[in-house]
């Protein structure tokens, strides 16, 4: 097959020291846990601050669990009460800062809600994010939420800059890609 891009890409300078992990495919709790172990080990050997390690691990887990819960992809696999969903995650280092990114497909009706929520979070100061996070902790989860409705707030809390996001409609499909980027 085409092995060339691999050797000219992530395995050659300068990429080998800036991409810590890149995965596109199905996400299940099992491979999330396995990737989590790799990230833990990578961070233990590359990052001295345990506070940064925790923030980065938290960001990674919240992003991939978002894919597992919300990705609306016809490629989803289901077995009993276990579901696997399709998406992409990248952990890289850009100018000495960690960047965690996720991409997955979402339905048009989710775009409005997500955009509104993310725009609101982007305007908040660190203190406001904390206060909103604390309030959400005590509130009942909204009906659409499969997690705790504090996943995005957790990402915003751990990031050093406002979360970045884009939506792109996929050609000949009603679905859009949702790209989310957090800089730690």
């Amino acid at each position: 097959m085409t092995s060339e891009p691999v050797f000219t890409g992530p395995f050659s300078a300068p990429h080998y020291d800036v991409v810590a992990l890149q995965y596109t495919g199905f996400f299940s709790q099992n491979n999330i846990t396995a990737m989590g172990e790799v990230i833990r080990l990578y961070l233990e050997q590359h990052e001295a601050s345990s506070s940064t390690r925790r923030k980065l691990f938290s960001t990674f887990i919240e992003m991939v669990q978002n894919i597992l819960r919300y990705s609306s992809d016809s490629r989803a696999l289901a077995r009993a009460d276990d579901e696997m969903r399709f998406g992409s995650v990248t952990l890289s280092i850009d100018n000495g800062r960690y960047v965690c990114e996720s991409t997955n497909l979402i339905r048009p009706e989710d775009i409005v809600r997500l955009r509104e929520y993310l725009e609101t979070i982007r305007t908040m100061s660190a203190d406001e994010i904390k206060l909103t996070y604390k309030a959400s902790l005590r509130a009942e989860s909204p009906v659409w939420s499969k997690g705790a409705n504090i996943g995005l707030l957790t990402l915003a809390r751990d990031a050093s800059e406002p979360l970045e996001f884009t939506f792109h409609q996929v050609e000949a499909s009603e679905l859009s890609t949702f790209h989310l980027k957090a800089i730690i």
Partner: protein
Amino acid sequence: MNNIRIPATSCTPEVEFDFDGRTLSLAGESYPENAAAFYRPLITALENFVPAQSQGTGSPLTLHVALSYFNSSSTKMLFSLLSAVNNAAAAGIATTLHWYYDPEDDISEEFGQELSLDFPAIAFHLHAESYHDELR
């Protein structure tokens, strides 16, 4: 009262709910895909424990929580779990909670402080120390 023992997995904590011995502990990682499914039975057990105790000896209850990492949905469930514990404490069962966190982990420290403010019936002790040596 049925005691609960669940061994740790890579994404769920070890659970030792020894109701007879009045000692409950949670230790390890907590980022299951479905945190509600994991924590709901524990919360139910705590809720059942309260009425069972009201005619009992009322001997004190001690909790140890030592979670190295908990994701957002676990955070929410921990809040519900401690709410049930707080109800037990408010019902007259003297309850102490030991919260262990890595000294550099300000997120866990803050969450521990947050819990202590929200659940005043519980006597809180925050420990900035590694839990590995503490509980074993």
